[in-house]
């Protein structure tokens, strides 16, 4: 029998699905652009292989990130899930409903992503031709049959990701889910700190020890340096965020009460926010390494490296960065949406909407600066064995910093502005 659990969840918790929907949109965009370009340059095997790799990465990342974002979406429906479990929904039925929710959202997100992917693909093919990677005669030919294919891929990957994400929340005993989630508290444990320090130290040591290896071997090993550092930074995240609040307090005090409020809330939220720090640092560091390898070569040798190779490298980096940015925005937005009552309370206690948003902007600033400093450190340590003294033009650095700020703002200031449009009493009552 059709129960309509999924339909009710989609209606009642519309905003909770912004996360999976944005992931699916980006995935559909990447698939639409790569597959259309691939169909357009049929007959160039090397390029074709690279494009297939991009598409496969997109599929893999979709399963992963739809799972992560659906997890947050399920958490927002925790009360409903507990009620349904109490009155007779089995864990399997909850899992099926969650998978259906993700699949239903995938259809409009997939159509929008497919359409947005077409202009992106057109521009991309143009640049591939300009860089001599695609034959001059290649014409961008949209293939309508790709839409049902992409939708099918998206529905299946979303359902898989959602099923995996729902395993734990569907099995939770109703009594546990009915209890106030706020009473559960996590602590920053010594084990976590130790493991984080070990990974950071290991990454640093590896970087120094591979510095004298020949080029290619050093490049391969550098990937492990970056991974170790990023995971380590993620584990140390809460501690790092609290430290940056301590360091930044004098500066924040210049912003008066607003700055102090922001510093306090980042310190309290350090654990939740550090979840967003990992994708943020990973993306920025990865992009910085990719860019710096090419710009440093150009700077040292005084001439551009093979432009075509660099361009393909940048294309791949863009795909990764898109997904990681979506993950970072979603994690940040989840934290912010979880605080909607706190923000409303702040307004009821006498803060104007502008003041509340100013606090959120300050918080976003703390996260951005912390993320950039960490990413610069990670990228620096990773780059040393590859290029010894990295060089990136100031303009490129500025663009990167601005892009990071935009991503952080999209996950904090934007949802805060949307949420505070309603009168605060609506949140509390």
């Amino acid at each position: 029998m059709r129960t309509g659990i999924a339909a009710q969840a989609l209606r009642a918790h519309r905003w909770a699905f912004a996360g999976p929907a944005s992931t699916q949109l980006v995935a559909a965009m990447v698939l639409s652009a790569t597959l259309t370009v691939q169909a357009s340059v049929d007959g160039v095997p090397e390029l074709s292989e690279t494009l297939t790799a991009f598409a496969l990465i997109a599929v893999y990342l979709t399963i992963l990130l739809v799972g992560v974002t659906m997890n947050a979406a399920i958490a927002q429906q925790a009360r409903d899930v507990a009620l349904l479990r109490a009155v007779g929904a089995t864990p399997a039925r909850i899992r099926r409903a969650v998978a259906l929710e993700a699949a239903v959202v995938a259809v409009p997100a997939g159509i929008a992503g497919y359409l947005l992917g077409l202009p992106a693909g057109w521009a991309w093919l143009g640049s591939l031709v300009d860089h001599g990677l695609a034959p001059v005669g290649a014409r961008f030919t949209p293939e309508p049959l790709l839409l049902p294919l992409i939708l099918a891929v998206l529905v299946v990957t979303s359902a898989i990701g959602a099923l995996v994400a729902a395993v734990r929340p569907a099995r939770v005993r109703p009594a546990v889910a009915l209890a106030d989630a706020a009473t559960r508290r996590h602590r920053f444990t010594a084990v976590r700190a130790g493991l984080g320090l070990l990974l950071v130290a290991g990454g640093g040591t590896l970087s120094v020890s591979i510095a004298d290896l020949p080029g290619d071997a050093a490049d391969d090993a550098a990937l492990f340096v970056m991974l170790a550092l990023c995971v380590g930074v993620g584990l140390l995240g809460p501690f790092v965020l609290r430290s940056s609040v301590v360091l930044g307090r004098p500066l924040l005090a210049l912003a008066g009460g607003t700055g102090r409020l922001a510093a306090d809330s980042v310190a309290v939220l350090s654990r939740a926010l550090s979840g967003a720090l990992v994708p943020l640092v990973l993306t920025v560091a990865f992009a910085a390494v990719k860019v710096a390898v090419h710009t440093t070569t150009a700077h040292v040798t005084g001439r551009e490296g093979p432009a075509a190779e660099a361009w393909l490298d940048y294309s791949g980096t863009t795909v990764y960065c898109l997904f990681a940015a979506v993950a970072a925005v979603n994690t940040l937005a989840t934290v912010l949406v979880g605080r909607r009552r706190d923000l409303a309370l702040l307004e009821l206690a006498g803060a104007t909407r502008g003041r509340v948003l100013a606090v959120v902007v300050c918080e976003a600033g703390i996260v951005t600066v912390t993320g950039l400093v960490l990413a610069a450190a990670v990228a620096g340590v990773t780059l040393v064995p590859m290029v010894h003294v990295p060089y990136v033009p100031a303009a490129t650095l500025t663009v990167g910093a601005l892009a990071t700020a935009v991503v952080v703002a999209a996950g904090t200031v934007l949802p805060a502005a949307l949420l505070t449009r309603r009168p605060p009493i609506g949140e509390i009552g």
Partner: protein
Amino acid sequence: MDDDAPVMADGLGRRYGQRPWALRDVSLAVPAGQFVAVMGATGSGKSTLLHCLAGLDRPTAGRVRLAGRDITRLREAALTRLRRDRVGFVFQSYNLLSTLTVARNVLLPARLGGPRVSPAALAAMLDAVGLGGLADRPVGDLSGGQRQRVAVARALITRPAVVFADEPTGALDPTTGGQVLRLLRAAVDRDGVTVVMVSHDPLAAAHSDRLLLLREGRLVADTRTPDVTSIAAMAS
């Protein structure tokens, strides 16, 4: 002990992690057609007892029988079906799915695969709880008292053996709370339903037949329900 009792606990205990026992060595049997009120201060373990008896949580020690089945080690899916088919629930709040209509909320157990409900039975149930004519209204439009009556209708529609109510009037004023309690009382008297209700309110407990008092996780009193003044004196 009476093996036919719809609710039975033997040496029941519940402990969360390494914290002190939330519930310790509680044994009781609730015969069919009895209205039991569980009282106690905040943190006395009364909600934990209700959750363990109702199969919403699993005890750390002891055994629980519910509607004729030992649920202590029952698999999650089987336990869920038992709740769906034989047990009704009324919580203090978050009882309903806010975007569904009154009728759809009441039919939720049936739509999840529970006992079928005829349109006539639904109409009769809505009339009985005073919500006739509101079947197609979204529950979001209703008052607090009306919502609790929707929850009672959902709890009773499957003709359950037991209804568990956790502070069902906690968010209501005395008048609307009284309506909800009279509905539960009527289900006991008319249909022989067993009701186990947790409450901190002596006025609510006064509707019951039997009063259990918990203190620091232990059952310290088990008597016929006295009058309101005596209940208040016992509970304080």
